[in-house]
């Protein structure tokens, strides 16, 4: 059992310092916690209460997108009622958050690191990239079109090798991130198995990715998503099937070794 003080630190009031639109439907939220917090690990997440009152009822999970000068940043897309209400909250308002939760990425000490982010997958991957820039990872980041690329310039500021792609070729390479990954691996001099991939995304993207990786013996870890109620391991709502049985995304995850996931 961890010390009480440490854990109580997870239930926090935070002040909205900024909540700005980045591109259509995407917002960057900067929070100033009312008490000092320890540095969250890339891949960890927080549960945020988006509104007053009992509707929406549950907190919403968002990955840590950055941690700067004691301030937490989240990058989110408006998809439904909760994120819509969150986007309407303004500087100065107070908001309850719970975290950091879950296990972050465990970074390999030996392999060549590939960071793979499609669309909003950049939310946690950006934080990971920033914190392991010294390890010289390669970032492959893609979106549908130039307009839906969330970052172009800030990505360059990370100072790491970056391949940007768009599905329609309107910016960077043409194709989705998986295609670009395959091409990258084909072109590189290192054997496939010397790489490890860290990624984040929906099941639709992760499933083919996992197949490709296991075919070529590449290790791949991904931050996964499931609907969550509690975020701390009690509701059993957020499970995924792995070779070692059902695991909770909020507790044993959100980062999983994709090679161990049993897809339905």
């Amino acid at each position, binding site marked *: *059992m*961890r010390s*009480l003080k440490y*854990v*109580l630190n*997870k*239930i926090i009031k935070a002040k909205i310092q900024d909540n700005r639109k980045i591109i259509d439907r995407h917002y960057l939220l900067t929070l100033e916690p009312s008490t000092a917090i320890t540095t969250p690990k890339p891949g960890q997440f927080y549960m945020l*209460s988006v509104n007053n009152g*009992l*509707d*929406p*009822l*549950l*907190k919403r999970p968002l990955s840590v997108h950055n941690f700067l000068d004691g301030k937490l940043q989240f990058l989110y897309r408006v998809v439904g009622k*909760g994120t819509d209400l969150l986007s309407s909250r303004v500087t100065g308002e107070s908001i*309850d958050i*719970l975290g950091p939760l879950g296990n972050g990425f465990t970074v390999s000490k030996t392999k060549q690191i590939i960071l793979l982010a499609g669309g909003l997958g950049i939310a946690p991957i950006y934080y990971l990239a920033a914190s392991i820039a010294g390890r010289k990872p390669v970032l492959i980041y893609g979106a549908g079109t130039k307009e839906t690329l969330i970052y172009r310039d800030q990505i360059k500021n990370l100072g790491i090798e970056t391949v940007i792609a768009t599905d329609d070729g309107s910016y960077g390479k043409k194709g989705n991130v998986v295609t670009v990954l395959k091409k990258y691996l084909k072109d590189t001099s290192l054997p496939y198995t010397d790489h490890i991939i860290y990624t984040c995304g929906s099941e639709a993207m992760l499933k083919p990715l996992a197949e490709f990786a296991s075919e070529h013996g590449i290790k791949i870890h991904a931050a996964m998503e*499931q*609907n*969550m*109620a*509690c*975020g*701390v*391991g*009690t*509701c*059993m*709502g*957020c*499970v*995924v099937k792995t070779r070692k049985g*059902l695991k909770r995304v909020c*507790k044993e995850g959100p980062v999983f070794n994709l090679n161990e996931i049993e897809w*339905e």
Partner: protein
Amino acid sequence: MKVSLGRLKLKNPVMTASGTFGYGKEYSEFFDINKLGAIVIKGISVNPMPGNPTPRICETPSGMINAIGLQNPGLKGFLKDQVPFLKQLKTKVIVNVLGNSADDYIRLAEAVEEAGMNAVELNVSCPNVKKGGIVFGTDPKAFEDLITAVRKKVKLPLITKLSPNVAKISEFAKIAEDCGSDIISLINTLTGMSIDINTRKPRIANIIGGLSGPAIKPVAVRMVWECRKAVKIPIIGMGGIIAAEDAVEFMLAGADAIAVGTGNFLNPLTTLQVLEGIKLHMKSQGINSVSEITGGLIC
């Protein structure tokens, strides 16, 4: 703050609702769970159950639907992995059990008794799994037979958890009392459903699930009140409690103790806050004993 639920004595009336507090470990990272009156363990079946596919939960106005499908490690796994932690707790531990036959329930209750737990709660009302109790909980005859059979074999305080998906819940309360149940707890979740209009699919894989949270509180309070008029045995009230005010409302309607379910998900400290809030309410109103609240509705 002490309350007596018949033979089951609690240091205070604040409990957790089965399935919303895990096996106690997770929230014990946030606070000293020994402060609670009792913790109630997620439903245990004889054999391990994998539960339902995901999505298992979705949100609804002031509520949520779950169809976890009673995922649990089975009796053996529970005894081995959870009981050692639970045994060293300094609060009462109540184990929620479910089965497909009276024999299942008896076997589970006897094992729970042997393991030194403090009470057993019969989940005859879970709406998620076809045979997970739905028959027992909504058919008066099956309900009666089950409780009678379990009572015969089990000495531990017996809590029967009632389903709200019936026309007259007090009828079931009365049967539970007559068949020797020491305590009744209510309500379990209301059966509900939600559809994603864009995909045209149900929002949870199981199609239907159990509605819980503040949305159902008015139904739960009404049912506690109806049961209070029908039976003399103690009542554990639950359904949408997220604050001390809600807890007091249930007690005024007739609950001797209360349980927090979905409320735990909103904030890991909800149970503690409810406990502190009840204390404050009692102080401000000059109430000395919890029993002065129970059934205190003026009408």
